[in-house]
């Protein structure tokens, strides 16, 4: 977890550090606005977007409720197709298994298509420590890897960078200037990555959906790199969060219709691959071996809990794009793999870290995430449930709440306190007030409200 900021500084400081980068906010605003517009027009073309969303929500609820049984079925079908299955209880188990597969096959180079689960288990660093070169092949993920950073968006890893920054980075790799035009940048990346695909001994991918009925792995990409990763190298390892399962192709159909529309505003992503088993005799391409690692890492503990709905997520990133908090601070300030509203839920739900428990505070509870979620996860409710598990930390805050309850729990004392506020009204014109402990937090960037010397009840006595 070393690459992530969670343990390095408290949330407020991470947010402040992000806010101090005007570039970051400009890049985020530009990108997320574009995604939201595209999403809106993609949904406008659907006959009944609300109905589809309701259907998807019901399907996810049904599948996640049957998850253990469906996973068994999925694993059976995978084995029947000649794949290997590893149940990873935690990150270490997943890393170790993948490392063993690599060792058995004498892997020197692995190419990867984007997988947030692999970020979650710290796979790249682990394999590099084993002496294996790991190359990310999703363009955004490659950019982030070259920069020595972590993804700042679950779908668009380099969303925090603009093309100038990317051209500068590529220039360092090329040893010469790379033009800032998107087409030139993509061409440069393609040329570099083509060789990597051909040289790699192992391909590592994530899984957008596993299909229980057929034991198929579904991969959705826009760059085609997923196809190269899963078909060129001798060995393919697919890492899948255990909740990324659909019961059958009918459920897949509904979710695919929503995934690309919610993510990028496309009706479908450019490449949708459905992989069922390794290469069979007589087939021209495909890996000799297929290993599927099904990752728990804290997920099964959410089954049957009041956070179960977090497992409905299809990782479209729409909640990040609409989130007014994400828009200001970006993904890195959240401190772990998953950012935005779903990250603020998943991080404390999956990580036993005390620092993670602060994340549900990174929301104004505006509910934009819930409204944007294609499978209707009530993210603002989940954030509230997590807040209930974390009592206020500081003595001062606990005391403040106690005083609040003592006064406002009684109508008489409530009225008295309002009288005190009104009597102190002239004080609110005094500049020094904004330096007092409670007021100073509000006064950070905002003038204190001018308190009237007569409240509503005074008006009511005269006019009621």
């Amino acid at each position, binding site marked *: 977890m070393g690459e992530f900021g969670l343990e390095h500084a408290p949330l407020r400081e991470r947010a402040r550090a992000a806010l101090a980068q005007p570039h970051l906010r400009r890049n985020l605003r530009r990108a997320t606005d574009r995604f939201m517009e595209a999403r809106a027009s993609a949904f406008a073309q659907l006959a009944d977007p609300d109905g589809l969303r309701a259907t998807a929500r019901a399907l996810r609820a049904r599948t996640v409720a049957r998850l253990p049984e469906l996973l068994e079925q999925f694993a059976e079908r995978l084995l029947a197709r000649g794949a290997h299955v590893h149940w990873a209880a935690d990150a270490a188990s997943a890393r170790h298994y993948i490392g063993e597969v690599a060792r058995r096959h004498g892997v020197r180079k692995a190419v990867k298509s984007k997988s947030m689960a692999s970020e979650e288990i710290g796979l790249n660093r682990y394999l590099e420590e084993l002496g294996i070169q790991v190359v990310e092949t999703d363009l955004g993920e490659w950019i982030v890897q070259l920069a020595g950073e972590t993804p700042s968006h679950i779908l668009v890893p380099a969303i925090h960078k603009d093309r100038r920054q990317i051209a500068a980075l590529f220039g360092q790799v090329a040893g010469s200037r790379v033009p800032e035009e998107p087409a030139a940048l993509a061409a440069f990346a393609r040329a570099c990555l083509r060789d990597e695909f051909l040289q790699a001994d192992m391909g590592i991918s994530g899984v957008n959906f596993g299909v229980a009925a057929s034991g198929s792995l579904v991969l959705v990409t826009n760059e085609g790199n997923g196809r190269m990763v899963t078909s060129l190298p001798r060995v393919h390892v697919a890492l899948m969060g255990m909740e990324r399962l659909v019961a059958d192709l009918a459920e897949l159909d509904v979710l695919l219709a929503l995934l690309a529309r919610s993510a990028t505003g496309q009706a479908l992503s450019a490449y949708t691959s459905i992989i069922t088993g390794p290469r069979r005799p007589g087939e021209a391409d495909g890996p000799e071996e297929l290993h599927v690692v099904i990752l728990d890492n804290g997920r099964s503990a959410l089954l049957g809990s009041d956070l179960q709905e977090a497992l409905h997520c299809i990782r479209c990133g729409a909640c990040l794009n609409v989130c007014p908090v994400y828009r200001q601070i970006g993904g890195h300030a959240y401190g772990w793999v998953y950012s935005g509203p779903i990250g603020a839920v998943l991080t404390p739900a999956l990580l036993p870290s005390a620092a993670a428990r602060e994340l549900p505070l990174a929301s104004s509870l505006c509910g934009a995430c819930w409204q944007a979620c294609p499978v209707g996860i009530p993210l603002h409710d989940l954030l509230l449930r997590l807040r209930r598990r974390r009592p206020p930390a500081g003595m001062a805050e606990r005391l403040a709440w106690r005083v609040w309850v003592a006064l406002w729990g009684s109508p008489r004392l409530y009225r008295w306190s309002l009288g005190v506020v009104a009597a102190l009204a002239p004080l609110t014109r005094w500049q020094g007030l904004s330096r007092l402990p409670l007021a100073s937090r509000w006064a*950070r960037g905002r003038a204190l409200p001018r308190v009237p010397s007569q409240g509503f009840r005074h008006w009511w006595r005269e006019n009621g």
Partner: protein
Amino acid sequence: MQRQPGKVALLVTCVVDALAPGTGAAVVRVLRRRGIEVVFPQDQGCCGQPAWNSGLVREAALVARPTLKALARALARGAEAVVCPSGSCTTMCRVHWPELFSLAGMAAEAQEARRVGERVLEFSELVARLPALPTRPDGRRVALHHSCHMLREELGLRHQPVMLAERAGCQVLPWPGAERCCGFGGTFSVKLPELSAAMAEEKLRELDSLCPEALIGCDTSCLLHLAGRARARGRDLVVTHLAEVLDAAESGHG
């Protein structure tokens, strides 16, 4: 309730009670002008939202209980609905109160909260159903801040505030940030003050190019936060609750 109520109870909200008495007065006048009797249950206080949003169930329930009781008594004495000049407090009472009191182990209050909650109407929600009265048109170019709780599917009040502002004779200007959270978020604004102010700042920056003559909205807390940010950056933005805009336009007539 589709028909016009004869008598309503006012849930004024603690913010308006202490900081924006003019908004409460405007609500009363707008309703009285339509022949509705308004009562003000004296024992009401806060709806408990600050503690609820901080994850403090017991604290929220203890503070919300007197307000629940006061409203229940008013309804028992003939008020047909409760009117509240805040989208977020309306959502608290209507949507969250039943869950709050059951989580706090107060079964009787949870029952009562279901009965009371469904009769709480947000100001624009109620007034949009009532007849339009003649006005002296306001005539200003205004921006409307759609607060989050108004927009969410629980209340779904997107068009009512616009319609009422236009009825008051305002020219409501479209702007990109109209539906984005202002960054208030209750205790969020003091827990992460820099972030909260940055969210307000972005909205205000969008208004700089629009140059509205006023910013109007339906949640006083959001409006005070935005006004506070505007003053801190050295611009006095006229910020007004919709009830006051409508009341001024109607009282100016004749």
